[in-house]
């Protein structure tokens, strides 16, 4: 179905995309996409990863050239060959991943992006003005490395606003924000819209879109599958448009077995290896058999450091990490795996898997303990068989066990890595960002798999930025902020509000007793 783009009811549309198509070597990223954005409208572009949202935004921003189709800007047909041209037209974009120099100040970063001659002092005043006006508090003279992720996003937004844009594109802006910061951002966006700025808001979070947006264009597989007023739709109906079926739910039965401590973190402190790392201070947590414990918080608050200390990639003091009652803090990742630890890192390519190696070879990476090596020699057939079973059991879409890891999409590679770790029947499983880049259907499957794994007597620790995810699968939730860990609280005794507050670092320093008692 390719409906003709609707004619706007009143006023000239700010932006009109007509029949945009973009083909990449292996995939049709945009297939005859049409879209209308009116002045002062907050317009959602909704879709799963790989639905073609980002490609479409890059076409608008001039970062990618469409193969076919036209772009109308304020009623005129335009050619947008590069981002500079887009900015000249009045299009600003805030990317999911920031492009800021950590060693420079806020105003220096902004000056760099404006180009031409500038006067830092007067620019700093302007930055302050704009940030005050839109409720984006920002000190122009602070160095970027000292800013939180939310503050860095403000820098990016202010940088766009200084150019007086008529259209602002935000790509998954809330994935790095606390619930409170999300609310602040929404206020800013509404104010901008009331002044006539159009906003294109890309997200897959249905609740946010229903709260913020007046209109939504839903994409699936590169095509527009529907237009809707999100306020009149339910999350379920939007999900149907987005994934083509009902949103699946997770079942978390009660654990029947004996509850014993499997992973104990005791007074773990560590100085970071590099200047911009986070210092871990006095972290204490116990993960028991039969439970999923979640660590909420925004990346950059010590997540990477804590994971490396737990996995053994950076050994710590002996007593700080206990695995099944044995002190293993000083041991490396291999030795901890020998003792029943499995770990899924957030970086899949290059850490969880070797990009240039086949899936069979990547199975060997950690699963060589599953009798895939005898007398120091590799058993190729056994490794292929292991990879094949993993592919089947975890529904990994790929070209078979011989496919290179880098040929898989992020979500499918994640399924393979999670599968590889689970199939080693661990006693403790640590997973970082289990569903980053994984589509909605597969996310539900992975979450259910983690719950089932825990109910078989495994202790599961999940570190995630997605609060909804943690509330769906975890029995207890702690928050890591500024290198400190809040006490883990049973899920029913907390809510997004409280977790969000803790994410800002507002919690009492935990004592070992409080976590053990949980």
């Amino acid at each position, binding site marked *: 179905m390719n409906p003709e783009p609707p004619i706007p009811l009143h006023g000239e549309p700010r932006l009109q995309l007509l029949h945009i198509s973009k083909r990449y070597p292996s995939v049709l990223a945009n297939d005859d996409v049409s879209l209308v954005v009116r002045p002062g409208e907050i317009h959602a572009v909704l879709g799963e990863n790989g639905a073609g949202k980002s490609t479409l935004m890059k076409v608008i921003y001039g970062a990618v050239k469409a193969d076919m189709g036209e772009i109308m800007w304020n009623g005129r047909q335009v050619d947008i060959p590069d981002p500079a041209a887009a900015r000249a037209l009045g299009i600003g974009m805030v990317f999911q991943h920031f492009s800021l120099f950590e060693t420079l100040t806020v105003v220096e970063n902004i000056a760099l992006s404006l180009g031409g001659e500038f006067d830092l002092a007067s620019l700093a005043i302007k930055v302050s003005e704009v940030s005050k006006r839109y409720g984006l508090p920002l000190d122009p003279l602070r160095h970027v490395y000292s800013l939180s992720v939310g503050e860095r996003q403000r820098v990016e937004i202010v940088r766009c606003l200084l150019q007086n844009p008529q259209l602002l594109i935000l790509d998954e802006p809330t994935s790095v924000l606390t619930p409170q910061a999300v609310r602040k951002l929404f206020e800013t966006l509404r104010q901008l819209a009331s002044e006539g700025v159009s906003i294109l808001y890309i997200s897959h979070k249905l609740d946010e879109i229903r709260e913020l947006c007046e209109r939504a264009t839903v994409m699936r597989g590169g095509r527009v599958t529907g237009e809707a007023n999100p306020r009149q739709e339910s999350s379920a109906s939007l999900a149907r448009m987005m994934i083509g079926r009902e949103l699946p739910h997770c079942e978390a039965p009660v654990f029947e077995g004996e509850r014993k401590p499997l992973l104990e973190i005791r007074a773990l402190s560590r100085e970071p290896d590099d200047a911009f790392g986070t210092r871990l201070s006095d972290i204490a947590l116990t993960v028991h058999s039969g439970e999923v414990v979640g660590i909420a918080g925004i990346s950059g608050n010590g997540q990477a450091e804590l994971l490396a200390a737990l996995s053994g990639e950076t050994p710590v003091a002996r007593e700080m990490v206990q695995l099944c009652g044995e002190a293993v803090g000083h041991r490396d990742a291999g030795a901890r*795996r020998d003792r029943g630890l499995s*770990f899924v890192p957030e*970086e899949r390519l290059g850490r*969880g898997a*070797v990009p240039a190696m086949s899936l069979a070879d990547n199975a060997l990476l950690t699963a060589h303990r599953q009798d895939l090596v005898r007398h120091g020699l*590799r058993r190729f057939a056994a490794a292929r068989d292991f990879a094949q079973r993993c592919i089947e059991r975890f529904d990994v879409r790929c070209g078979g066990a011989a496919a290179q890891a880098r040929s898989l999409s992020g979500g499918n590679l994640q399924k393979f890595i999670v599968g590889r770790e689970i199939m080693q029947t661990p006693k403790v499983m640590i997973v970082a960002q289990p569903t980053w880049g994984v589509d909605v259907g597969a996310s539900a499957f992975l979450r259910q798999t983690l719950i089932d794994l825990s109910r078989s007597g495994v202790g599961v620790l999940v570190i995630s930025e997605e609060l909804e995810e943690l509330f769906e699968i975890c029995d207890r939730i702690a928050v890591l902020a500024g290198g400190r860990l809040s006490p883990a609280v049973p899920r029913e005794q907390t809510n997004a509000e409280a977790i969000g507050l803790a994410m800002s670092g507002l919690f009492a320093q935990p004592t070992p007793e409080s976590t053990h008692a949980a």
Partner: protein
Amino acid sequence: MLLEPRATPSRGMRLAAPLLAILLTLGVGALLFIALGKDPQEAFHVLFIGPLADANGWSELLLKAAPLILIAQGLAIGFRARIFNIGAEGQLIMGAVFGGGVAIAFQDSQSAWLLPTMVLAGAIGGALWGAIPALLKTRFNAEETLTTLMLAYVANLILSWLVSDPWRDPGGMNFPQSVMFGDAALFSMLFEGLRLNTSVFITIAAVLLFWIFVSKSFLAYQVTVGGLAPQAARYAGFPASRTVWLSLVLSGLTAGLAGVGEVAGPVGQLNLNISPGYGYAAIIVAWIGRLHPVGIVFSGLLMALIYLGGEAAQMALQTPAAITGIFQGMLLFFLLACDVFIEFRLRKPLEKRRAAALARKALP
């Protein structure tokens, strides 16, 4: 012009790259000969066909290829792990010094154990000289490219001191060289009147062992992971220091064996011309052989042919000795260039594309 990575580098091209590099080398080589006023066809005949015209030529080819292949096998393990030992020449010299030292110490021995002892001593000498950079790297994080190369000069100076003072042949007219080794300290000849000797079997055995090691062993897999994705190796718990030790000691060991093969073979003594740069040429052999044990056999033969051809060209065409180095260098240069274009593609800057697009639009 911009270089951007290709999504899927062609596997076929990666295997064809050495052939492409050879063709390019020949092409530029032809231009070079024309510039020198020589007939390229005749020059190529002298370089690549002439040396293989008789049995002696084939014997010399294998004699030169054997050490190149042996050293390259060891180097390739390290290169897979991105441990760049470029001082195999020094490890070769230390192997020759240790092995030759045994021969000098037991000059009068007729024991059948003398040669095996020399081989063992040579292996130990080379391995020790590789172990020093390994220690420096694992303890002090010293770059092995620098330390291995510098230690090659140190090895050369040690050899130079030994043959001009303590181990100098008293009856050698003051030349910096040791006594000639006795028969028990030499590999025996394989064919009457040809220089090819039994040390070639060490290389053959090494090729087989390395082939099994690389294709079958879990240890080689761990080493390869360490080179391809260091973070993944750390994630899996493969110790990085073990890879460093293994790479450098193993490549030192093979270079040391090659050193014994020279002094207990065609050279027959310790002097200052043990190796015509085998340790450096083996770096090229390893790369042209795509770090694969069998590929290295072919590239080793090719490099040996360039050595022979270079010598023949000096005599027949009066070209300078540098011709050998030029051809070896061009081969590596073109191979690396081919690799770049297999992994990356050239992209025209945006301005030109825009101009092209405009031109297309202007057409009816």
